[in-house]
């Protein structure tokens, strides 16, 4: 960094209002607010906030390492910007553009202040470029992370949606599983079943695997562990819809389903569940 | 692989086991492990800390938050300078205990984590290292 205090610090203070106006001009020219996803006021507020945060942080004299405590507020602010840009559906280059477009206004001021001092100007321009590039990088990085989080959350939600836990009766939950089970999916689905048992206070859960073509050792073991965990919590579990091939596999794999209640189909499982809960079903005479 | 942060905690009293559990819980939360993963890892840590105290006569827990190829993980190393374990295979068997335990601590914690390593030299001491990835 330059010897003594960087001139950037002074410029940010002296020309705060001018910088802001020029920057907003740049942003408008680049069409940052043209499609109405972000309002002019919002953009202005964000720009104002950024300039003032930047001024605060540069006062520490550290202009080359944005990972330190002085830059915490700026980083947090940029993380916030990234999150809102993700939510508003912007691309990462558009988000980085927000920071890059402050370059021109800042360089113009630097030239004005340091016009005659060519060396000083070159040096300060370099410092400013480096700094803004780092801040833009941070923003893009944070943008990508936010987007990855969003995607992961959506995938998890989709996974849960694809195997919903349904309440069949007071105290009886059912989990109809459909499609190929892999270990990861089984795990997530089972965890959500256990949570629903607690939330609803249901004492019987039916896992119906009629729609499952095959099970491998891992999945079979996972089913067994789920049954054991459900019992530990004080509820009970019935597995229904085990098809002949799956029954064979389970035996071949040596997975011990001894002591686990199994029923041929969901209807039989429900009728057993109701009986255990003390309900009886009779046909009304009419 | 790089270490993001690390520290050492003493395991010299029963209270230390509680403190170790709490420290590990906090780290797993910082790493945003799922509740199930948090619980599994804290439980494994509790088992190993108790072994360090009871059989190893006390020792230390070294923890590291690590970064490897973009994924983050938590690595714990329990180290003591106790009598060591003469027969590791036996000690790692479900249900085997030299004392009055259930003999599930070592074998069970292995199932609760992603990586499990145990080194022991009779007369020198024991070190058990476990890792769970985010």
């Amino acid at each position: 960094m330059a010897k003594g205090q960087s001139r950037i610090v002074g410029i940010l203070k002296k020309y705060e209002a001018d910088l802001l106006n020029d920057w907003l001009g740049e942003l408008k020219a680049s069409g940052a607010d043209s499609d109405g996803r972000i309002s002019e006021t919002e953009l202005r507020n964000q720009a104002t906030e950024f300039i003032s945060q930047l001024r605060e942080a540069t006062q520490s004299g550290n202009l080359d390492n944005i990972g330190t405590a002085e830059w915490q507020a700026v980083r947090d602010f940029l993380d916030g910007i990234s999150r809102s840009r993700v939510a508003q559906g912007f691309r990462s280059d558009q988000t980085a553009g927000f920071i890059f477009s402050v370059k021109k206004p800042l360089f113009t001021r630097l030239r004005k202040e340091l016009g005659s001092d060519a060396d000083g100007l070159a040096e300060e321009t370099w410092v400013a470029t480096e700094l803004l590039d780092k801040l833009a990088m941070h923003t893009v990085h944070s943008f990508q992370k936010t987007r990855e989080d969003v995607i992961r959350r959506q995938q998890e939600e989709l996974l849960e949606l694809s195997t919903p836990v349904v309440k069949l009766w007071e105290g009886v939950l059912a989990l109809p599983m459909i499609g190929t089970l892999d270990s990861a999916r089984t795990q997530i689905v089972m965890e959500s079943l256990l949570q629903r048992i607690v939330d609803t206070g249901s004492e019987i859960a039916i896992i119906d695997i009629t729609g499952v073509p095959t099970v491998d050792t891992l999945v079979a073991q996972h089913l067994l562990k789920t049954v054991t965990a459900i019992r530990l919590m004080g509820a009970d579990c019935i597995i229904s819809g085990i098809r002949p091939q799956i029954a064979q596999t389970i035996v071949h794999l040596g997975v011990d389903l001894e002591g686990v209640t199994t029923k041929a189909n969901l209807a039989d499982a429900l009728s057993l569940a109701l009986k255990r809960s003390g309900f009886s079903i009779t046909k009304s005479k009419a | 692989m790089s270490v993001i942060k690390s520290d050492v905690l003493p395991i010299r009293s029963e209270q230390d086991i509680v403190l170790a559990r709490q420290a590990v819980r906090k780290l797993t939360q910082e790493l945003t492990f799922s509740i199930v993963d948090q619980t599994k890892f804290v439980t494994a840590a509790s088992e190993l800390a108790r072994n360090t105290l009871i059989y190893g006569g006390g020792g230390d827990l070294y923890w590291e938050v690590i970064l490897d190829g973009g994924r983050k993980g938590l690595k714990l190393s329990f180290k003591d300078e106790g009598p060591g374990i003469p027969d590791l295979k036996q000690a790692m068997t479900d249900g085997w205990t030299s004392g009055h335990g259930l003999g599930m601590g070592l074998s069970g914690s292995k199932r609760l984590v992603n990586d499990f390593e145990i080194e022991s030299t009779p007369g020198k001491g024991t070190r058990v290292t476990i890792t769970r990835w985010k």
Partner: protein
Amino acid sequence: MDRIPILQMGKFLLVTIQVDLHDRLALTLQDDLTAKIEKTNAKGVLIDISSLEIVDSFIGRMIANTSSMARILDAKTVVVGMQPAVAITLVELGLTLTGVQTALNVERGMHLLRTSLADKEADDVCDQV
């Protein structure tokens, strides 16, 4: 805190474990409970572990032992409120708490204790006849 409070509710005792138990505290609880069963002639014990974030082999063993000791003293134990993550972990650890009766929550646990006490009293009457 160096003792877990034990509440008496008629013929039953209720223990709510709300702190991260260190080993000695767990053993003290075991002693206190058995002493109190004997003193109050309690017929049932409810151990609420819904606030417990982990159950390791030590706590697991304490719970299993307490339940066996209570049985010898003619009281039935029900452990209630185990968190899903705790249950999943116990299964993976290899502890299934055999012989320990569990229920989803305090209400269901109480119901279990009451029905089993009623059954038992009916049996005792038969024995007398």
